[in-house]
């Protein structure tokens, strides 16, 4: 079993995606996969003006570290990056970036939805939607 490394960050500024790309480089991987969640203008017919994310920061960091460790083992990842932005995330900007690398293609791609599902279940981060009509609401998971 090869050793894995991961990087987990909570940031208050725009996520510098280009700067993250080389974090998962390794001569023994053949596949890099990235997922980027961005603020979308339209949700179920309503027009979003902007989103805010709040968190229990120290716990969110700890939960993300546990998630990174679990995902690395489960999928045999060589490197893994998870960055979540907090505060306001305007339309078109990234709230979350997950990137990982592995020797073969399937592991890196399959890891993305699993990590996102776990993140959405267990990491103490909350999204507040601000609609153009002035209404605001905490988003409830399905």
């Amino acid at each position, binding site marked *: 079993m090869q050793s894995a490394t991961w990087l987990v960050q909570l940031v208050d500024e725009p996520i510098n995606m280009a700067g993250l790309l080389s974090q998962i480089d390794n001569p023994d991987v053949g596949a890099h996969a990235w997922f980027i969640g961005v603020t979308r203008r339209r949700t179920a017919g309503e027009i979003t003006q902007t989103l805010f994310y709040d968190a*229990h920061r120290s716990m969110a960091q700890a939960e993300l570290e546990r998630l990174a460790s679990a995902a690395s083992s489960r999928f045999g990842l060589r490197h893994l990056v998870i960055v*979540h932005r907090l505060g306001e995330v305007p339309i078109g900007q990234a709230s979350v970036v997950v990137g990982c690398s592995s020797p073969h293609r399937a592991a890196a791609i399959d890891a993305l939805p699993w990590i*996102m599902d776990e993140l*959405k279940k267990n*990491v*103490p981060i909350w999204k507040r939607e601000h609609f153009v009509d002035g209404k605001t609401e*905490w988003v*409830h*998971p399905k």
Partner: protein
Amino acid sequence: MRINVLLFAAARDAVDSDEVEVEVADNATAADVLAAVGELSPAMQALVPYCRLAIDSRYADASASVVGAKELALIPPVSGG
């Protein structure tokens, strides 16, 4: 004993505060703390069944003891990503 519980998101809005103090038995469990927080207001009572308690930044089982905890946090349904 009197203990502090950190609040987030809709729970914070429900009492307009990021922390509350509640009274629980000296051998209280996570379930006891959730029940005591629920007593604070009707809005909180409605929300607590959907919340988890975190003890020192880890989700706690209902039966986990809160004695000696450095931090308690009420975690409403999360929606990151």
